[in-house]
């Protein structure tokens, strides 16, 4: 029998995403605020505290509550990844880095998160219809490609050129 995924797994995933963000923003510190890597480290540390609280109040908190606060933590980390992508693209106008970030960090992170959330739902006995699975994969592919296309400066230039004409 497959061992069930605990809700705290999402917190663990969120911690790893924050740590990855911290290291990547450290490498890109000439383009990012200097304090950002440390803020992400603090966020990861907060996630660790999160898991510790879960461990100590394991029997007090129900599965439902544990799932939601861990899932929200994961969503916050994903939102930060998307925010960095938007920061490069919109605030800094560094399209190449924004495109690279979206393809190499944002898209895989979201895809991995969706995979584990779907897997958790399946192990909890939640019915996950086939059409929904196909729709999920399709939307993930469409999201990935559309993010890459929309952040492509050539496409944007062509669009704005067409509008001017």
């Amino acid at each position, binding site marked *: 029998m497959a061992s069930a995924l605990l809700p705290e797994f999402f917190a663990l995933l969120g911690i790893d995403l924050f740590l990855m963000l911290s290291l990547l923003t*450290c490498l890109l510190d000439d383009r990012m605020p200097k304090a950002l890597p440390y803020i992400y480290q603090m966020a990861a540390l907060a996630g660790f505290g999160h898991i510790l609280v*879960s461990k100590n109040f394991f029997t007090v908190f129900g599965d439902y509550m544990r799932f939601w606060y861990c899932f929200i933590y994961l969503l916050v980390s994903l939102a930060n990844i998307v925010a960095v992508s938007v920061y490069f693209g919109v605030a800094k106008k560094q399209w190449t880095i924004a495109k690279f970030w979206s393809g190499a960090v944002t898209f895989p992170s979201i895809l991995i998160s969706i995979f584990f959330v779907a897997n958790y739902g399946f192990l909890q006995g939640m019915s996950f219809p086939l059409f929904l699975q196909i729709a999920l994969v399709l939307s993930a592919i469409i999201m990935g490609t559309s993010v890459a296309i929309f952040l492509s400066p050539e496409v944007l230039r062509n669009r704005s050129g067409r509008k001017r004409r």
Partner: protein
Amino acid sequence: MNLKVLPAKKSMKFLALLLTSLLIASVSAAVYYSLDMTSTITVAANDIYFTLGPDNATASVSIFNDNKSATLGLSAYKNITMTYDDAIRVRNNNTGSSHNVRLRSVSLTGNAANFIYINFTLQTSTKVSLNYTSDGSSWTTPSTTSFVSLSASTEYAIVIETKANATATTGQSATIEIAIDVEL
């Protein structure tokens, strides 16, 4: 950004962040692993238990311990087969699924010279029985039966047959303890 020309200050900063990241990630994973090892055990009601059959008074059946244990007071007559058709039953109270059970001999005391056999048969579709036989000097203890299925929400009688030796002494007794193993 070129990794080859990273300034020393930046390298040190990155190294420090990398070390703290490794520390946080490994400690978090260790705590998650210990969480994964935490088991929650819930007390559940047993699905399989004894119920009284219509002939329970004849066999002086007494059920106790939340219907998980029972005692019977049986008689054996000299050279006559005595059959208790439906003194006690085994019930599968689960409404959705069947359970497998088997009969297992636990202990036997009493003088073998007084008895010919004492037989317990569970009336499932494939009947299984524990047959204690005596050759007049010693008992032959039966081996544990194979597992048989009890359908959901169904009761099965245990038929008991006894026969005492023609030369048995009146008032002598044997005590047999059997167990019903339940496979969940």
